[in-house]
């Protein structure tokens, strides 16, 4: 059975999928888990992939789906905790870690992006960081290319508002203004 081909898929795409997930999730360990799960799923399913299929877009779609499911169950868990008056310790543990991350990188844009609603965050990251086309993004998010584009635009608008008068030239270099 020719599974060597899959090793090439991992070699070619794991780094990028991991980077994508690291940008859209809020805990580094989530990116580790979700990127592994993405490729385990892909391995199970790649037999059904059509010969000339766009493997990269397909992997993004799997990763995006996992990310959304993960987000949904996280949200459910948070709500359940709140309902019984618990403070979410795992979330707290992730918080400072993430803050430090952002401080260190001091990417103001990154901070705004991570606070975006999930679909916008995913669409924006796929488009502006990984440069996927809107068709692929739409497929990942189960929506039309047009809606995918609208999510990206919405994200850009929020980034623009979030930056206010902050000099963007500095943002690129990562120096937060006062």
């Amino acid at each position, binding site marked *: 059975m020719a599974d060597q081909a899959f090793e090439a898929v991992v070699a070619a795409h*794991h780094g990028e999928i991991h*980077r994508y997930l690291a940008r859209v999730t809020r805990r580094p360990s989530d990116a*580790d888990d979700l990127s592994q799960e993405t490729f385990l799923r892909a391995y199970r399913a790649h037999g059904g992939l059509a010969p000339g299929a766009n493997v990269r877009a397909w992997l993004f779609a799997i990763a995006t789906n996992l990310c959304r499911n993960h987000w949904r169950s996280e949200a459910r868990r948070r709500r359940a905790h709140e309902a019984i008056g618990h403070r979410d310790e795992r979330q707290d543990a992730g918080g400072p870690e993430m803050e430090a991350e952002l401080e260190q990188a001091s990417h103001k844009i990154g901070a705004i992006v991570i606070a975006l609603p999930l679909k916008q965050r995913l669409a924006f990251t796929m488009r502006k960081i990984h440069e996927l086309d809107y068709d692929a993004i739409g497929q990942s998010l189960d929506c039309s290319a047009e809606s995918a584009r609208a999510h990206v635009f919405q994200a850009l608008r929020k980034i623009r508002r979030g*930056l206010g008068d902050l000099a963007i030239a500095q943002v*690129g270099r990562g120096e937060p203004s006062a």
Partner: protein
Amino acid sequence: MTREFLTCREVEPDLIAVAMDEASPPAAQRVDTHLAGCAECRQELGRYQEIEGAMTGLRRAPAPGSGPTLARAELEHRLADLRTRLVRYGVFESALGPVLIGATEQGVSVVEYLAGRGGAGVKLARRGAEAVEDVARTEGLFRDLTEYLEGRRTRLDWPLDLRLAGSDFQRRVLEATLRLPFGAVASYARIARELGLPKASRAVAQALRHNPLPIVVPCHRVVGSDGDLVGYAGNRIGLKQQLLSLEGIHMKGGGRSPHVDRDAVYYCHLDDTEYCIPTCGTISQQSLGNFIVYASRARAEGAGLAPCTSCRPDLHPLPA
């Protein structure tokens, strides 16, 4: 060209599109028209273009977190584990009814007669394997099987994965059964003797009852010591009969108790290197457990046997 003049709010999507360099010509035109009369939006466009520029830096910057190296190493580990466990299967409509064919990376690991199309994954899961339907990877196997069932090939030379065998003993029984060539029949007792366990014929029958690879591991070529076609795929003796007919084995007493026609096969005694006709010596009085029988001279000679020098099957062949 002073059609409609969009408000700042209305023009913003087009403005973003222009900044991102993906605006359609009409959108670009709308923006131009608006910007000509709006200094504020000219500045806005500059801001969006700066954001666009900053993205280049962000694309090059490493993602937050520890980097993918550790995750990649862990992934390789989990993939290696999954590879040994994952059975890719397809369900196909064969001449014998619906069959499931499944294979791991090591080889074909399961062939199963199904009562219906449902429940395939369930049965595999019960065998402790992780299963995923993958017709693309298994349809080639089904083509081979179809050729076999149509008599266009006599061997299924597939790499096999016998790890779904329940025990070491069962694996040894399956391996001994695999050595029975097309057109040959032996008894459970004969297989037991071959394993050096002459009293284990019941255990052999039990092991073959749970054969994970029927047809491929030809348990249909193993019969009772009196030639009865006992126990197959639950109680589907008809299937066993069909598979043996395909190999040219003559049977008698159809219906509920078919058995190998002892007068219509060639015999090879224990570890003899010659084959005989049924009337040679005391063959007809002996248990089938002492022999491997063959459907034809060609099958016997294909197994490397020579005609017996006393009964001369080469001179007195059985009627075809």
